[in-house]
């Protein structure tokens, strides 16, 4: 049994973490909430916030740049996360088989996700360069006309997506691979004995068993992807035009370049709300999906 003194110490152990999180996330969250309904002015060394009601929100909803950034972000999230899931699942299934060099492939396949995003962004910027990059040369040899990977307004966003897929498919791979390893081999064996084909085993046994891991992986990746900024910052700076400007980049530009703190905070807060709604919709959707399967 745990003693009384130890019980008191438990609070002591927990308190630094709680206090730091309160100071660096909960308090800042409330501060941002105040900025959203206010007007920020620097007076001397301090900051004054005057209440202005919903003025920032009215401005936000009439701002074309906001709707653009929202659509850019949603598009990147939708395309990148779904392709990352499919690729990650495929790779996990491949490596989960009894292949030689399983360890080697496993390590190699997770490497990109821990690399510095700014360096990764720079790397892909060089690769997508039309004159000096390696892709154009290969395409020309194949007789395909060069593509303005980072200079064409309708293509640039997909170059960002490709970069994101390169870096983050490993995350999906990692979680799905771990989940595959946790499936008892008897389940698959039993299905085989009952005469199920390879596809049936995958569709009826493996995929349902992977559902919780899939949902968790997609949710986590989605949340991270909504915050995308590093690679865009260095690859296109939001351009050409504003065709790749994500929500975080937009909020940064307004809040810290134009130094319009309250409007920048409003943009950031709207990203938080979007993220919250998207996560809730996803969780609800998948819950219904799971209920259907149970019937």
């Amino acid at each position, binding site marked *: *049994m*745990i*003693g009384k*003194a*130890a019980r008191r*110490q438990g*609070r002591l*152990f*927990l308190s*630094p*973490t*709680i206090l*730091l*999180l309160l*100071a*660096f*996330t909960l308090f*800042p*969250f409330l501060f*941002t909430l105040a900025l959203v309904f206010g007007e920020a002015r620097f007076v001397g060394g301090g*900051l004054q916030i005057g209440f202005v009601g919903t003025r920032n929100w009215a401005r936000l909803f009439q701002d074309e740049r906001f709707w653009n950034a929202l659509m850019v972000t949603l598009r990147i999230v939708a395309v990148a996360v779904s392709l990352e899931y499919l690729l990650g699942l495929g790779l996990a299934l491949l490596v989960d088989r009894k*292949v030689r060099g399983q360890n080697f*492939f*496993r*390590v*190699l*396949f*997770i*490497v990109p996700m*821990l690399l*510095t*995003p*700014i*360096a990764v962004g720079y*790397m*892909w910027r*060089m*690769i997508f360069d039309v004159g*000096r*990059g390696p892709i154009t*040369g290969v395409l020309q040899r194949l007789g395909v006309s060069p593509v303005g990977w980072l200079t064409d307004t309708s293509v640039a966003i997909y170059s960002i997506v490709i970069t994101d897929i*390169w870096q983050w498919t490993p995350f999906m791979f*990692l*979680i799905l691979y*771990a989940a595959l390893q*946790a499936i008892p081999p008897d389940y698959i064996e039993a299905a085989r004995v009952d005469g199920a084909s390879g596809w049936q085993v995958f569709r009826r046994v493996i995929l349902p068993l992977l559902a*919780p*891991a899939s949902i968790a992986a997609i949710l986590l990746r989605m949340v991270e992807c909504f915050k995308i*900024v*590093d690679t865009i*910052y260095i690859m296109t700076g939001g351009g050409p035009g504003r065709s790749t400007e994500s929500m*975080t980049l937009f*909020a*940064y530009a307004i809040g*810290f370049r134009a130094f319009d703190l309250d409007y920048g*905070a409003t943009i*950031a807060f709207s*990203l*938080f709300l979007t*993220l919250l709604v998207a996560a809730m919709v996803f969780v609800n959707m998948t819950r219904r999906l799971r209920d259907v399967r149970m019937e």
Partner: protein
Amino acid sequence: MQRRLGTVAVYGLLLLWSLVVVAPLFWMVTTSIKDKNDVFLGPKYLPWVDFIPTGQWWVRLFTVEKDAVLYPYLNSLIVASISAFLTTILGAMAAYALTRVRFKFGPMKNEDILFWIVSQRFMPPIVTVFAIFVMYRVTRLLDTHIGLILAYTVFNLPLAVWLMSNFLAQIPRSVEEAAWVDGASLWTTLFRVVVPMVLPSLVATFLFCFVFAWNEFLFALILSYSRAQTVPLLIASQHFQRGPQWWDISALSTLAVLPPIAITVALQKYFVKGLIPIGK
């Protein structure tokens, strides 16, 4: 026959994705050993075949540009290692308390507290950075090591608590319980009994937090500019100052991704072991 075709397809696909992973890194590393002309005059692919490699940019990096490069590198090392150390200790303590003591704060029980801590990771950094910027401006923590260390410690805490509570929930408690009966404190059991048992997990948690602090960009961009400049910030600023001097920045970027690659290889078994609870 069909089976052999299947095997060929499996290895073909595995090698294809390996190529996808390696090719961009290959391009980055080889660009750092190209002469200016080999960069500007169209794409050159293979060293010794398409172009003669040169080590001049690497030599420059460690001689002429030593200070400009070394300084941010040291900053990154200091900030990432100290913050990762703090995160690991604080995270382990919180996780230990949460897995051993039953708490009740109002309606919040242990699982609720753990969930609240972990969920803080979902908050987009851009939402909180406005307040942190103002806080740092007032307390003069802008562009300081301490400022970045604090920010990164908190940024990684949810991850550390989550990882450590997974690790700590797995170890048997008989020894600790015997110690508690003898009146030992949590402090004693954690640092004398538990830490030696979970040392590899602590190291793994430390290295994860190190990598995420090492890679972080947005906080560094807003909270520091010159004295506390980190490696990602250096790469970005070089890129915007110098334009297409690919060779230099490729060398810098290669230098930036070396620690994460080393850590990935060192940690390979934890990736699967530590993440299995999420798959259940």
